[in-house]
């Protein structure tokens, strides 16, 4: 299992094997939603904010 650094909080994020570009995973430390920008080596970026109406 490879690792990448979370762009939000800096923690290590473990990545599964069949990672694909565009996939969204969450950081286990800060919960940030991260988009897979590249796979070899893996690069993560903050996923575009879901303009989810979160209860207001």
């Amino acid at each position, binding site marked *: 299992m490879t690792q990448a650094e979370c762009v939000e909080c800096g923690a290590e994020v473990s990545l599964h094997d069949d990672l694909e570009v565009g996939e969204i995973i969450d950081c286990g430390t800060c919960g940030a939603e991260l988009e897979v920008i590249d796979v070899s080596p893996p690069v993560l970026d903050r996923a575009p904010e879901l303009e989810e109406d*979160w*209860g207001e």
Partner: protein
Amino acid sequence: MSASPLTASVIGGSGFAGGELLRLLAGHPEFEITQATSRSYTNKTVGSVHPNLRSLDLRFSDPADLESVDVLFAATPHGVSMERIDAFLEAADTVVDLSADFRLPEADLYDEWYEGHDAPEYLERAEYALPEINRENLEGAELIAGGGCNATATILGLKPLVDEGILGPETGEVVVDVKVGSSEGGAGGGAASSHPERSGVVRPYAPISHRHEAEIGAYLGLDVSFTVHAVDMVRGASATCHVFPDGPVSKGDLWGAYRGAYEEEPFMRLVSGGGGVYRYPEPKAVAGTNAGEVGFELDPSNERVVVFSAIDNMMKGSAGQAVHAANVALGFEETAGLEFQGLHPVGSP
């Protein structure tokens, strides 16, 4: 009661604010309801959605077919009214919109805080609905824009301090920590508002950048540090404002400011200290009513003023405020249709 009541319609009548409007209008001596719209419940009885209105003999109709009325109340999500405002003003002499669509005075603010505005030419014709700060301009108004509930609670709490010069744009940080109930989210909540997930919470739901900051800025002239928490109630909004005045302020100054502002107001109550269980404003003391409770405390240790403000978001924070504004606009008794005093004891309304 007048010889012949005015006719009224409610667009968005199946929603939470729309249902509250229907309840108020049905009990209002000066109005009779002509139309309540809903796309999802067209032809169903109003009582099938709002169980408290089962005895109302009225069915929802399609919002595409507007009937001609004296007053049209729109309780639709943000964006609907700005699209249909021409049709609304054609159908009715007076339009009271509860959404954010006409609340802010300038189009720029819609660019900054929302996704712009479709009908900016109406912005200066619109009057902010809160009589406590805009009574004189409401008289005879044709387009009335209901305030946001959190903004209303905050403005009611801080306005007297601003008016007295105790607080101003130069004063330094004003922290506004808000707690709100689940009805604020409207009838169409998602996963976060399901009962198992939403019960028992103290949940920061807008830690920063809440849009009501724009309204507070516009009507108080203040930038506030604004954070909103969801708590386990259905109705209610409570704002705790932490203010640090520049110079010394006494309890006498504060009482002077608040009594001066609210003593004659029919819906405002000062609740500050005293004995018993209810010593400061709290939402359950005003639940179901159009009352606003405001109170304060002075922290001797750091010259902080803590202001508490509590309203029912469905009433003073939306439908009640709208009816109050309509009463002022149309020259009715201000309290007409808004006399309910609330309940004691009451749980978590």
